[in-house]
């Protein structure tokens, strides 16, 4: 990056009202295990898991209940002890309200762990062995993308990364689960980071924490003091600092190429919660069966951070947090900037659930859409350097390829543009629609190619069959002719 470039580097991002306190300062609570848990089979990026239990089977907490399927997938474990009562469709924690396959577990109330096998000295294990154990524990990226952590670990070992970046940014407003985790379990986090360093072969770990979390920074500094390879780096609080590309740029000054991966610049990024889960998986052999969830928003009676078993219903969590003070304008899973609006509260918590927010209308600030006045606030807010106003206008006019030409595929859907839009245009919805539509077109194209092959195969088969039939007929005819001529010659017909 030249000097000129540095002077003219665009200011990106937005500074939303954080709303993190007082929820961040309330001590962590633990949700008592509800009677029923609904473990969704697709709660990670990649192929859904395949059930490994039968209905009626008894399981203990931590028993594997579903196997990974394909290269990118993750295992699932029983979040408590009890009986499998159903494997079937339940409403997904998704704005569409469509069903998803899930394993339903009736708790026996004992919450009894299965036999766990820990490891006293993980640094004696081979990196591949660590990845394998992480995979067996079903650990996925807990920042929200839910990419299987083991896949990332082994990929980065292959890519020879030099730097492990730990994302403790937590730039989404309202959320404080990572903050709380770093305050409560800094030592475990640092240990997990060191195990991941060993597994990836990176030499240093940079832990990026936004500077509005002084307590977490202090706790982590204290825990990382003995280890020179783990550096705690406060970063300016700005949304979306927690986005992978932004954090890498801020901490290392390097830009990840578009269409590339952080590994291309010798970096791999993991969430702080993932580090903690890796620690638990390797040291204690504990699979990922619970996670810290921030419950926040003006409609929540007692906001705070709650340790929730995977599969608990949002309804149960809300009830535990004192219930709702008022009917929320929106119920959200995740943060307010990128989270998913939930159709209702009868959906399960998944591994990627960082927060459950019940927001009042004033907090959402939704208003009727007005025409775009091209004020270009979105252009200044975009962390990627796109032109959201032009992309949305093209998508509105049905010109998807035009939107792609000006960078739709580089959009990270962070929502900074729609957050600042004075006309309240649902920019992110336009982009999500266009990306979905393009993916559907691509699927249709692939499908058309596949069916074309089938059709050609059929044509070839029919041609072959016809030819065979013709040949057979010709042969028969020839045989018949030969036979008749033979009989003719036998009888000595007159020539």
């Amino acid at each position, binding site marked *: 990056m030249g000097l000129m470039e540095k002077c003219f580097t665009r200011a990106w991002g937005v500074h939303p009202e954080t709303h993190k306190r007082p929820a961040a300062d309330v001590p962590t609570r633990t949700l008592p295990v509800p009677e029923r848990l609904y473990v969704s089979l697709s709660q990670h990026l990649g192929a859904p898991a395949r059930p490994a239990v039968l209905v009626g089977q008894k399981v203990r907490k931590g028993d594997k209940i579903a196997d990974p399927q394909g290269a990118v997938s993750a295992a699932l474990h029983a979040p408590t002890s009890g009986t499998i009562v159903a494997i079937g469709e339940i409403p997904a924690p998704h704005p569409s309200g469509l069903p998803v396959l899930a394993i339903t577990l009736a708790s026996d109330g004992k919450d009894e762990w299965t036999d766990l096998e820990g490891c006293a000295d993980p640094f004696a294990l081979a990196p591949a062995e660590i990845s394998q154990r992480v995979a067996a524990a079903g650990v996925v990226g807990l920042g929200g993308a839910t990419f299987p952590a083991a896949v990332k670990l082994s990929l980065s070992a292959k890519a020879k990364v030099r730097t492990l970046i730990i994302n403790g940014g937590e730039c989404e407003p309202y959320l404080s689960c990572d903050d709380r985790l770093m305050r409560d379990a800094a030592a475990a986090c640092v240990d997990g980071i060191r195990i991941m360093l060993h597994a990836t072969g990176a030499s240093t770990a940079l832990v990026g924490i936004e500077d509005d979390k002084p307590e977490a920074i202090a706790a982590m500094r204290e825990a990382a003091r003995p280890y020179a390879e783990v550096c705690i780096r406060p970063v300016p609080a700005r949304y979306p600092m927690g986005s992978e590309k932004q954090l890498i740029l801020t901490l290392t000054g390097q830009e990840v190429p578009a269409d590339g991966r952080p590994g291309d610049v010798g970096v791999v990024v993991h969430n702080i919660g993932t580090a903690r889960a890796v620690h638990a998986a390797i040291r204690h052999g504990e699979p990922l069966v619970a996670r810290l969830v921030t419950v926040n928003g003006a409609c929540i009676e007692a906001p705070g951070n709650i340790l929730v078993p995977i599969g608990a219903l949002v309804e149960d969590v809300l009830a535990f947090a004192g219930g709702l003070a008022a009917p929320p304008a929106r119920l959200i899973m995740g943060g307010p900037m990128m989270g998913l609006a939930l159709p209702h509260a009868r959906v399960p918590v998944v591994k990627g659930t960082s927060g459950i927010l019940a927001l009042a209308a004033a907090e959402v600030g939704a208003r009727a859409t007005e*025409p775009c006045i091209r004020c270009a606030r979105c252009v200044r807010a975009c962390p990627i350097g796109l032109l959201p106003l032009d992309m949305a*206008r*093209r998508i*509105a*006019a049905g*010109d998807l390829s035009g939107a792609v030409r000006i960078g739709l595929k580089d959009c990270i859907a962070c929502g900074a543009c729609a957050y600042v839009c004075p006309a309240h245009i649902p920019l992110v919805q336009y982009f999500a629609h266009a990306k979905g539509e393009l993916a559907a077109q691509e699927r249709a194209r692939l499908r058309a190619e596949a069916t074309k092959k089938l059709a050609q195969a059929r044509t070839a088969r029919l041609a072959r069959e016809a030819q065979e039939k013709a040949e057979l007929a010709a042969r028969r005819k020839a045989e018949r002719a030969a036979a008749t001529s033979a009989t003719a010659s036998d009888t000595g017909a007159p020539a």
Partner: protein
Amino acid sequence: MSELVLLLLSTALVNNVVLIKFLGLCPVMGVSKSMDSALGMGMATTFVLTLAAAASWMLEHWLLVPLGLEFLRILTFILVIASVVQFTEMFIKKASPALYQSLGIYLPLITTNCAVLGVSLLNVQQGYGFFWSLAYGFGSALGFTLVLTIFAGLRERIALARVPAAFAGAPIAFITISLLALAFMGFSGLNV
């Protein structure tokens, strides 16, 4: 030299072929849907116009006037222009198939672009010398390209606008170009 530059400026801006003389409106309306093809069309027309201006000057002064055949002026000019356009078409087809496809029918139609013939005839009328004719042709073509590109940029934006149904398409294009002509009136009376 500075007078030549002045002539260039004045033909391109003050007496713009499209907006002030209203010549060459067909390609301006036809090839202004995208900025890239407009620029390509502008360059093709620039090439043709400049070459036609030179060729027509030579025809006029070395053939028509010496032989007293001025009555054949339009006929011979069109012949030369058509040949130059044919050549340009072949060249673009070879050099840039994408541009060739995007220009479509409008490329051969440069032949009938009245700006080309108009500028050649105006050149003769004004009695310019060879280099002045060249400058006049080139300046007019520059003005044409400028307007075409600007107009294409505007139309790209208007294509995405919520134009009421009654005005969508050609009507709004005409309104836009009229407003553009209004803006170019600002250059009237420009003298350095």
